[in-house]
């Protein structure tokens, strides 16, 4: 199986009275195992000619669900500062939050709800990808 690592570095010299310097690395394994995730969509890059509403970028139907350790990555690759991507979960489009230009997110995904996005303007570039586990042991 594959070995995939995901590292986050959070730094700030001035958000608190002391510098923040957090670095954590995770090895992406299948649920409750030491076996690496074995599927990857690649990183998809899309430029939407028009603003989008509830655009499905992760289809729950494509994945095994519940006892899983999938991971989703999304980035708003637009420039400027105002054109945001709204990340939503499920058919009711429950709001997770907004990614402003340059913002990215990385989160676990249990495969039961679609991941949708709205874009606030025309010609916005978004990139996304899913690391997931197959049913193979």
């Amino acid at each position, binding site marked *: 199986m594959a070995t995939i690592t995901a*590292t*986050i570095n959070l730094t700030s010299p001035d*958000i608190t009275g002391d510098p923040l310097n957090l670095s954590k690395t995770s090895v992406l394994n299948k649920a409750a195992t030491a076996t690496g995730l074995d599927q*990857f969509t690649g990183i998809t890059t899309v430029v939407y000619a028009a603003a989008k509403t509830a655009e499905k970028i992760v289809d729950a139907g494509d994945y095994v669900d519940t006892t899983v350790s999938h991971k989703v990555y999304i980035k708003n690759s637009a420039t400027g500062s105002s054109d945001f991507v709204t990340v939503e979960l499920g058919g009711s489009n*429950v709001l997770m939050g907004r990614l402003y230009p340059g913002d990215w997110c990385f989160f676990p995904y249990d495969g039961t709800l679609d991941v949708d996005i709205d874009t606030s303007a025309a010609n916005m570039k978004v990139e996304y990808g899913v690391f997931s586990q197959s049913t193979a042991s």
Partner: protein
Amino acid sequence: MATTTATLILSSADVTGHNFSMTQTATLTKAASSTGLDEFTGITSRKYPTAQTDTVVVADSIYVDTTVAHKVYIRNTSTGNSDYILVELEGDVIIGRLYPGDWMFIPYGGTLDVQVTTVATNVSIEYGVFSQSTVS
């Protein structure tokens, strides 16, 4: 205002037919602004002596909402490989499971609590919120 950066590094030598390595760095700013986020909870570390059900780790009432660029970080700091943390938005909207060592970093709209459920005793977690005040 503060300058806070969040960097993601994803890498694998073998998940595809070629080496995969990607680095993305975001400077965390207020919504539609170049002004940095100005609030931070610090990183909270907890070890739950008992299994938890829908325990609130981020309460929406504390934050301004919707037109915001808050960010939430959560990590399962437990050891082993089976004791997961189920992360949900209020109303049982499942995001996913963090297995030991896994972390997440998401935008947060401030409209729903972020909750965690654990299935074992002595599960450890750390979390924090970077957020924007209403001060311009």
